[in-house]
């Protein structure tokens, strides 16, 4: 029987005795067996519980998850001939720039900061004339670039909550008055220029612009967001009862009740001290605050319009996103002082340090990564899997790549169906391609990105208090305001905060139109007789090729390139695509039209839409 090493397990409990940990560190709760966990070598392991993917299909899944790209034919052949080659390929992919983009995608979902349907900071003052998409990408990517930097430089993942620096690009440096070297890289290390303590994402301007705290909430929403995201300890999913005798619009009364009412204390004694760390940040900071501050000339107080907490000069560029004088305002409201589940702290640096020391952090990150990689909620990740990955993560020194590697090489990740009727059996069935994956894969295959000019004809004429509404160029698969990210199953970052892995009619409409455009693009390109090396998909045919043997050879190559499938020229797969091609050729009498329909079909094929 498979089991955990008792000594290993006890050691982990002992290291964090002061910190709260319910299930994961309870020696009495033996997790279910999982092959990833260290095993007793003297005991015979059970027979297979899941049916694995073929090595090459495992490679396809790993490649799409780690890079958003399909493996190349050479990589597929290497693994077909020697399945052990998958590990060095995974290691190489973990060092690729595409992996860093995927890590940003993952964290964009965790942090919900890519939300173009929320008004961006405006093109005003020193940013007048800039396109809104440039400004939106500057501030929304700020926390994600920090994550990228940590992972790209092989820093411990814990640094995302402890870094004493931040990342900025040129427009962001203007927004917040940050040091920026125009001769340096587009995104470069800098520091917040106000007096905020530096603690990685905890000090992010954009994270707390996105997750605002209104009324008498007093930063509790932010505290809960951190607890849920990094400790998997959500306060908000519990029903709460508020007595009508509580004057909820009276901040002092609410603060008192949360300390004294038995129905409130249970949560608030942990939540409020977490929230106290965030005093100093604006409670709310919407894009139109800056616009309206410019409207008032940035030098007078607003007379009648909300919000009135800060003078307008705070909101004009460079924005003052941190108000040092408010850092201790929890005292003013008679709230609990900053603490982390009973451990007092002073500022965000203490909070970051205590979060990463809590074993719930490493297990939660393991859950978040495994859940994102396998398309399930973090709460649904089997405990055995979470604990095994937690150990891997901790033992590696919080190496993000080691965690990702462990996931994609695990038995459950390379499974596609269970062989036993065991509800807790970790199995990863058909995965649904995400909008980011599909966009990247299609661009890699066809060279097509769904770029449009999002400026309405009169966008620069309708200048209101906000400024103009010219967004410039937008990628429709990365936008919800103009495009189709959420309509393809992704999230909007505000109302839609969980992806949809079930196919939907809207997703099909998006996918079909995208596939048609991409197919038209690549066929026109490849059949325009570019140099052979410049061809993307149609490498074996010309605009006049119609003979069946050559077309079948081309189709065979396309199934390999676009689906990672090795098929024979007379296989059912090639029979099907040949039938589609030849039928279209007969009807249209045009090779290009026949290929455009066939490439569309291959882009919409279930072998690409699911993996």
């Amino acid at each position, binding site marked *: 029987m498979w089991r955990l090493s008792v000594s290993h397990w006890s050691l982990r409990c002992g290291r964090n005795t002061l910190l709260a940990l319910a299930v994961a560190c309870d020696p009495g709760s033996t997790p279910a067996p999982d092959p990833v966990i260290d095993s007793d070598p003297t005991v015979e392991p059970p027979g297979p519980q899941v049916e694995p993917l073929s090595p090459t299909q495992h490679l396809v899944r790993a490649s799409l998850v780690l890079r958003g790209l399909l493996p190349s034919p050479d990589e597929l052949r290497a693994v077909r001939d020697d399945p052990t080659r998958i590990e060095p390929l995974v290691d190489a992919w973990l060092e690729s720039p595409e992996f860093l983009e995927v890590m940003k995608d993952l964290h964009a979902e965790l942090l919900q900061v890519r939300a173009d349907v929320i008004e961006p900071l405006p093109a005003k003052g020193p940013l007048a004339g800039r396109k809104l998409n440039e400004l939106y990408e500057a501030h929304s990517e700020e926390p994600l670039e920090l994550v990228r930097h940590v992972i790209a430089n092989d820093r411990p993942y814990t640094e995302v909550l402890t870094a004493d620096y931040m990342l900025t690009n040129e427009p962001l440096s203007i927004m917040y008055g940050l040091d920026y070297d125009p001769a340096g890289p587009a995104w470069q290390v800098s520091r917040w220029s106000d007096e905020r303590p530096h603690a990685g994402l905890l000090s992010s301007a954009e994270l707390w612009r996105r997750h605002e705290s209104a009324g008498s909430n007093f930063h509790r929403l932010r505290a809960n967001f951190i607890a849920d995201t990094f400790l998997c300890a959500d306060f908000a999913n519990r029903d*709460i009862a508020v007595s009508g005798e509580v004057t909820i619009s009276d901040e002092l009364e609410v603060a008192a009740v949360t300390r004294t009412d038995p129905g409130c204390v249970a949560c608030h004694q942990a939540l409020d001290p977490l929230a106290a760390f965030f005093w100093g940040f604006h409670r709310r900071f919407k894009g139109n605050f800056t616009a309206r501050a410019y409207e008032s000339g940035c030098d007078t107080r607003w007379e009648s319009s909300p919000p009135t907490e800060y003078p307008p000069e705070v909101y004009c560029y460079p924005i003052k996103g941190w108000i040092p004088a408010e850092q201790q305002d929890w005292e003013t409201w008679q709230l609990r002082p900053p603490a982390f589940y009973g451990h007092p702290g002073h500022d965000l640096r203490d909070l970051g340090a205590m979060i990463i020391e809590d074993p719930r952090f490493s297990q939660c990150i393991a859950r978040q990564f495994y859940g994102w990689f396998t398309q399930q909620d973090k709460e649904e990740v089997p405990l055995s899997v979470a604990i095994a990955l937690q150990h891997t993560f901790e033992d590696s020194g919080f190496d993000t790549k080691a965690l990702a590697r462990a996931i994609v090489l695990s038995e459950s990740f390379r499974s596609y169906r269970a062989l036993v009727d065991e509800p807790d059996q970790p199995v990863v069935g058909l995965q649904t391609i995400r909008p980011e994956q599909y966009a990247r894969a299609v661009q890699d295959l066809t060279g097509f990105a769904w770029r449009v000019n999002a400026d309405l004809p009169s966008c620069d004429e309708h200048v209101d208090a906000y400024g103009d509404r010219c967004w410039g160029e937008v990628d429709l698969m990365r936008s919800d305001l103009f495009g189709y990210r959420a309509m393809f199953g992704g999230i909007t970052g505000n109302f839609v905060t969980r992806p949809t892995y079930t*196919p939907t009619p809207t997703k099909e409409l998006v996918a079909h139109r995208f596939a048609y455009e991409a197919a038209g693009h690549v066929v026109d390109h490849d059949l325009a007789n570019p140099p052979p090396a410049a061809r993307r998909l149609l490498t074996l045919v010309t605009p006049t090729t119609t003979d069946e043997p050559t077309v079948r050879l081309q189709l065979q190559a396309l199934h390999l390139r676009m689906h990672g499938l090795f098929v024979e020229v007379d296989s059912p797969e090639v029979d099907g695509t040949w039938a589609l091609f030849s039928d279209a050729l007969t009807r249209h009498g045009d090779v290009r039209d026949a290929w455009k*329909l066939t490439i569309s079909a291959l882009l919409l094929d279930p072998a690409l839409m*699911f993996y």
Partner: protein
Amino acid sequence: MSWSRRQLLTTAGALAFAPRLVRAARGGSSADRKLIVVMCDGGWDTTFCYDPKFSSPYIDGPWVDEDPNNPLDREGVRSYGDITITVNDLKRPSVSRFFERWSDQAAVVNGTWIGSLAHPPCRVRALTGSTLQTSPSFATIIGAELGASLPLGSIDMSGMAFTGPLAATVGQVGFQNQLKLLVKDDANFPPPLDGSIAYPQYLPTEDDRAALFAHLAARHEQLLARVDDGGFNARKLADRIESMARAQRFRTTGAEALDLLTLGAAPTLREQADLAVELLRSDLAATVSLNSGVFWDTHALNVGQHGLWEHLFDGLDHLMDRLTETGMIEHTTVVAISEMTRSPTLNLNAGKDHWPHASALLLGAGVIGGRVYGGTDERGESLHVDYATGEVDPAGGLVRYDNLAAGLVQLMGVDPGPWYREVVPYLPFAAGV
């Protein structure tokens, strides 16, 4: 639910003959009941309308904004049948007008306990009747059941659809009506700034599309043969087939309705109402979810609620007119809902914060109108009610978000049992139950 290869093939067969099915749908496989949901996101202040509290010393209602120098600016209480609401004919004339015209078809449901104070969990509770984002909304459940034979079960224009496992039945319009660009072949995307792409680069003919769908259906069969597990994998493939079939049917039958939408602008409530009626009338879906088009979260300057209520009832009045003109009112129910209401008293910014007691307005088919169901006390807290009558009754029970969601599902003739286990549906407002 277990999915078999046979079920998949049956659905795939339907896909292959999609054009014929589209014609059949137009010929009369209409859903008997239709639903329109109007989501008022942000939290409305019900003291401005549904829940007058003039006698309460604990509540700051709209009267705190009255202009003492303007005799026309007066808040009052007016009864329409058995519905008593707060009115101000100067600031919110559309509210009075609406109830004058439609009160006999209107049911006000007050005092639903929502169980949270933050927007996201309250939205989830109000729309799904659960605490899980992965649960489908009551509109999605109703649409999936009533719209099984239609191109779509439900259509979301609110931007906050909760679809859960029923996602294959749901369509979305997009924040600026961008669905139109996918459905109408003559609506093209603007080229990128460098002019390197001219859209469309390829559009298949209808014959091409039919051939493509038949090919993809066959490919799903091939893949299923490889990965069939009688459950997760099979269901996912079947959902894709269903989604493709529904998408194709919507594209061929829904394009005309989308002419009502303007690209590049968020639709107003009136525009959404026009489209919703057209979508339902054309049997393109069984339910449509709208957004009120304004944000109700008045933490500062609660005086802004006057305009929000005026906007809402102007839109609802238009919606009821359209439903009546088209005869759709006979089998269409409208639910206007917000995820919470606002705190009893003003805060330091003259705004109001969150309050976990909700109200809903029900209109149209199947609703016993002219009445208020449930209530709140003088501090705005939900009161216990008799579940059978909806009368306030201390011996009765509290109406929770799940009770109301289950009741709305049952109101529409759909069994709430599979989705709301051990939840008592609350539906004293249902005619004929």
